[in-house]
């Protein structure tokens, strides 16, 4: 066994200590991970309910659920900003990243445990500002495009300020993880033995560290323009509205990879365990995360093809966009090759991982359509975009996230959930997701624009289908959540600390792990993925 050297004498689990203070002042990476998990789940729920409201509105062509179109606009702004900035960007990176990175590399904690807690507190301040902002929410959409965000009568400053503050949390977390991965690897945990989740977290951390400041400044400029009338983006004052889009997407395209690279890492962990095979193309998967992290800075103008940018720039960025699909495809092919002739166990987490491969491929390929300049002119700002982004973000990131919840659940909480219910919930989620979003490709292709509360009669069947799908999806997520919550209040511990026979270090410690993880820092002697070698 790769990491059999782990010895454990002290068995006081990290969850033993009780009381509010033991949580809000904790510097234990596992507890901080839980704190993130709770907050992001909270925002996932609010934003999800908002989405159900929007889908309910769209079941019929008329405005019937919301009172005004502005209310609908406010709803998609809340949905988008919460999902993006408060759930999916910090999501896996901050929750599972915190929980797993020190355990996987054989460390007692992250490099700067207090800064880690500070990140969480900054995140909380950001969420507090946001909740305050929700009292009078904006109607700009999550992209806060100028000139509308300068002109609208709704309150834009508060919500952008919330996002701005949140950025610092991301930056600090990214910095912390980079230093941790460089400095705290256990003896023998060489770069070529690292779990792929660590490679993925590293690539994500680079993006968090280097891209986030750009959106921070951009939002600050927006606030300055709104509050003090300084002309950054208003042409009448010498500014350029396209400049906002440039700044915004310079961050936000890399940000889509902040959302999804950690999920890539998760899939690379789950698949070999349940296929009982060494991961295929370890190096290719590891390096492709870095390739993505670098290339993703070169494609941002593909969001602006019809914003009035020059044709030369559009053509260049259409070409560059194609490049990012290559390292992404490298991963998909390697996962598939890992499955080939594997002895596959359809554990609930594996079902999520397999769904990831299928759904993310649909999302990624439709991204390539959108990157093709001529096609995008037709598809831009239609439901095709909505479908694309949900296939990559739900089909990709959220599937990875749910998969991770099921995979590391025993380890993290020291409890066991009902596997049958988990599978049933997965089924509803998989079906519900596709029923909700697949029709959106068609209606987008036929011209249904995004961000409208009403629409012509002819789209009704697509919209209605999509709304029914959202109920199935919602039900699935509800069942999954309940199934994962119930065991937390029940007594009992998992029978084994390594039920799936993983070789990775985090499975060699008890479930839940003790405070500081390892009595003695283990010495790693083999590759993390040496399945079936013995």
């Amino acid at each position, binding site marked *: 066994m790769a990491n059999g050297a782990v010895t454990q004498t002290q068995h006081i689990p990290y969850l033993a200590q009780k009381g509010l203070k033991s949580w809000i002042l904790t510097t234990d990476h596992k507890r901080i991970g839980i704190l993130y998990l709770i907050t992001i789940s909270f925002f996932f729920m609010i934003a999800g309910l908002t989405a159900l409201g929007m889908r309910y509105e769209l079941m019929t062509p008329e405005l019937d659920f919301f009172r005004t179109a502005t209310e609908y606009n406010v709803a998609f702004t809340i949905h988008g900003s919460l999902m993006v900035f408060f759930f999916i960007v910090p999501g896996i990176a901050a929750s599972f990243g915190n929980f797993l990175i020190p355990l996987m590399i054989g460390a007692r904690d992250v490099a700067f445990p207090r800064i880690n807690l500070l990140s969480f507190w900054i995140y909380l301040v950001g969420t507090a500002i946001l909740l305050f902002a929700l009292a009078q929410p904006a109607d700009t959409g999550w992209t806060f495009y100028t000139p509308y965000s300068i002109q609208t009568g709704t309150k834009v400053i508060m919500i952008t300020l919330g996002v701005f503050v949140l950025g610092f949390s991301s930056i600090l977390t990214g910095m912390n993880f980079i230093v941790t991965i460089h400095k705290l690897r256990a003896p023998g945990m060489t770069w070529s033995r690292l779990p792929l989740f660590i490679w993925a977290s590293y690539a994500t951390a680079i993006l968090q560290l280097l891209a986030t400041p750009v959106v921070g400044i951009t939002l600050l400029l927006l606030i300055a323009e709104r509050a003090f009338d300084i002309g950054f983006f208003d042409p009448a004052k010498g500014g*350029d509205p396209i400049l906002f889009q440039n700044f915004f997407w310079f961050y936000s395209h890399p940000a889509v990879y902040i959302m999804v690279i950690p999920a890539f890492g998760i899939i690379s962990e789950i698949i070999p365990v349940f296929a009982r095979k060494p991961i295929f193309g370890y190096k290719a998967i590891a390096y492709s995360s870095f390739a993505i992290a670098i290339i993703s800075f070169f494609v941002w103008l593909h969001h602006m093809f019809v914003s009035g940018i*020059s044709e*030369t720039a559009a053509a260049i960025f259409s070409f560059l966009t194609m490049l990012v699909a290559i390292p992404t495809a490298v991963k998909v092919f390697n996962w598939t090759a890992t499955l080939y002739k594997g002895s596959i166990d359809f554990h609930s987490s594996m079902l999520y991982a397999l769904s990831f491969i299928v759904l993310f491929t649909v999302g990624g390929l439709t991204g390539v359509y959108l990157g093709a300049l001529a096609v995008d002119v037709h598809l831009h700002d239609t439901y095709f975009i909505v479908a694309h982004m949900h296939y990559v973000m739900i089909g990709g990131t959220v599937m990875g996230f749910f998969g991770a919840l099921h995979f590391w659940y025993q380890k993290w909480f020291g409890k066991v959930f009902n596997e049958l219910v988990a599978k049933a919930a997965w089924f509803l989620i998989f079906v519900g997701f596709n029923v909700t979003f697949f029709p959106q490709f068609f209606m987008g292709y036929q011209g249904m624009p995004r961000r409208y509360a009403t629409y012509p009669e002819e789209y009704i069947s697509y919209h209605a289908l999509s709304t029914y799908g959202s109920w199935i999806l919602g039900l699935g997520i509800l069942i999954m959540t309940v199934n994962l919550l119930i065991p937390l209040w029940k007594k009992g511990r998992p029978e084994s600390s390594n039920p799936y026979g993983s070789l990775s270090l985090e499975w060699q410690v008890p479930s839940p792990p003790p405070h500081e993880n390892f009595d003695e820092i283990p010495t790693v002697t083999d590759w993390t993925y040496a399945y079936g070698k013995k």
Partner: protein
Amino acid sequence: MSTHNHTEEHHTGLRVYVAVCLALFVLTVVTVYIAKFDFGDFNIVVAMFIASIKASIVALYFMHLKFEDKLTWIYALYPLFLLFLLIGFTLMETFTRVPVIK
């Protein structure tokens, strides 16, 4: 880490800090002084050039970049590359625009 601190102490005594501080003051005075001359389009270039020197010596000495290892240098320089990328492509886009309404 400990070996690091050692070399650091070696190189940056109080005198270096004071010298850097003085240099910053002098360069500030220079910036203000040359604002009196009009270099046309190059006004911004001259001002940015001096500002960059100031930023560099702050990073090198006050922030100890000079004594750091390669990895830290990469993390310090890569964002500069990204900055050029952002400004470069944004300007490229602006300069290649063709007026639609003639």
